[in-house]
């Protein structure tokens, strides 16, 4: 009994840490799709870029973890503004097929560039000492790294929630998601708003990729390998909401960890099966508005 309880706690804990990372990476995608209806399959590229920037800063220049993470956020957010203005903006009016193909093209290019610069091996992660130990609570040990991941992600979630629900920018964003044409006609500059939101979402993905580098290894095939999971989070959670992807990411994080722990022979089978079932039950996702 005690052993089972220990397993349950452990699975819930590891699953939560994984789910948090998934959420921080995917939330930007949810907003992008909800706001502009843009099928951005290349979202994982930003997470990978964040991971590479952070690890390079730490491994090559010896910067501390938090500073390297901040640099990754800024660098990727700025880079994504350039991409958005130069390329993405041309395709908002285009069909889904064009968007899907374009973003697949971006993924392929990013994989090639990553392989050229960093090689095919996954990047080593040298965690600082305070993230290496264990954290004792209620007579159990929890790896400090994952505790920090969960706490930091929760802080981000609160900040994000505050930003969207309580600030002027958030009100404009919600208005634009609900009815873009109307928001535009009452004087909200939706195109500028979108660029900013896109940059923020990409920056968050970079934080997720960098912070989760120990959980989801940073390697060139990253954007393809984890694409399905990012998309599942958004599809199940529903687009254009903050709450939906949060629930979906936690659900997927815990389910995936539980399956890997107890039923490794099935691989990711249950995740896919559950995705199909949920999408058939609610095609717009758990919290999405019905089209």
């Amino acid at each position, binding site marked *: 009994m005690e052993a089972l309880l220990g397993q349950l706690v452990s699975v819930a804990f590891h699953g939560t840490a994984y789910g948090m990372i998934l959420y921080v990476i995917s939330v930007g995608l949810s907003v992008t799709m909800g706001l502009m209806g843009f099928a951005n399959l290349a979202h994982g590229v930003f997470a990978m870029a964040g991971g590479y920037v952070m690890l390079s800063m730490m491994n090559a220049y010896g910067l501390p973890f938090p500073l390297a993470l901040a640099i990754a956020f800024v660098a990727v957010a700025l880079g994504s503004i350039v991409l958005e203005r130069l390329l993405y903006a041309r*395709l908002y009016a285009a069909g889904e097929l064009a968007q899907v193909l374009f973003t697949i093209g971006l993924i392929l290019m990013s994989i090639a560039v990553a392989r*050229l610069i960093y090689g095919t091996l996954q990047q080593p992660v040298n965690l600082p000492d305070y993230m290496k130990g264990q954290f004792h609570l209620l007579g159990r040990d929890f790896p400090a790294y994952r505790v920090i991941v969960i706490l930091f992600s929760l802080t981000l979630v609160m900040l994000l929630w505050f930003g969207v629900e309580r600030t002027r920018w958030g009100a404009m964003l919600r208005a634009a998601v609900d009815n873009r044409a109307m928001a535009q006609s009452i004087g909200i500059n939706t195109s500028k708003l979108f660029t900013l939101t896109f940059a923020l979402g990409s920056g968050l993905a970079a934080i997720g990729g960098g912070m989760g580098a120990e959980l989801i290894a940073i390697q060139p095939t990253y954007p393809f390998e984890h694409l399905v999971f990012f998309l599942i989070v958004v*599809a199940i959670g529903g687009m254009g909401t903050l709450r939906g992807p949060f629930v979906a990411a936690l659900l997927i994080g815990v389910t995936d960890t539980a399956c890997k722990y107890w039923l490794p022979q099935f691989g990711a089978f249950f995740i896919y099966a559950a*995705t199909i079932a949920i999408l058939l039950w609610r095609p717009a996702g758990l919290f999405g508005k019905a089209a």
Partner: protein
Amino acid sequence: MTIAARLLSRLAPHAGGYIADARIRPIEYLPWVVAIIIYVAAPEYLPLGSYILILMLFALSLDLILGYGGIITLGHTAYFGIGAYSAGILAKFVTAEPFTGLVVAAVCAGVFGLITGAVILRTTGLTLLMLTLAITSICYEVANKANDWTGGADGLSGITMNPVFGQFRFDMFGNTAYLYSLVFLILGWWIVRRIVYSPFGASLAGIRENPVRMHAIGAPVYGRLVVVYTISAMIAGVAGALLTHTTQFVGLKVLGFELSGDLVVMLILGGVGRLYGAIVGPLIYLVAQDLLAKQYPEYWYFWIGALLVVIVLFARGGLLGIVDALRARFEKARGR
């Protein structure tokens, strides 16, 4: 300029469709003439040639649903893979007769296409895309874990096909494999062409352009999509079985996401919704891959990615679209 224009108008790949003249124009025999010339003139390329022919058939099946039906899918390898595995398992455990294998593969892929199509085609957009990905991923997981049937990650080997008609052995030079693939590609092309030029094909184009309006004028949108999805799955299944028969091996990559992606790239490169895009695309993509990819794997994917971006931004119709645009410009210059 007139000569060039005349030449281009001969070469012009037609966009097809119900209103166009359905007779097969002389230029449409060109791919098959070239295929036979290659068979005679370049025997060392036959193994690569068979693979290209098989992927042309696979691309045709994708063109039917993507180009004509407007169904955006990233999971078409599910049906290709099921065809490949069912043909392989049948050949290994039951009978190694090739035509039986093709029929069984078509039926298996078709039934799976009917079931999954009936389920997923109720949705649209991103949800549909997600579902196609999820279904293919499930197939991949199953094939990966069901070691006893599929050989898992090592692939299904130990298949020895019977000779075609009891006469023509699948030789190691690929002579039989090439002609075998060519015959079924031509058959598939003929079927797809008939569909595209039929009233059914016209209604598909209508659904692609505006499903709501098609619904409003009384077309059974959902039913038509399920039917074309099933047909496309059958053709993809036959293509998969051809690959099994000609290589006598099934690898896990027939169900992989990578092949799905490559296939879409080939079709887009050739030109989507144009019938012959599915012929031109795989040919150019795979020949270029054979020449370049082995020496420069990193650069290869970079340029493929860049090509996709450029096609999406500047040349939606692919290579055949460029030919069309050039022709239109010449004709305009002639004052037509």
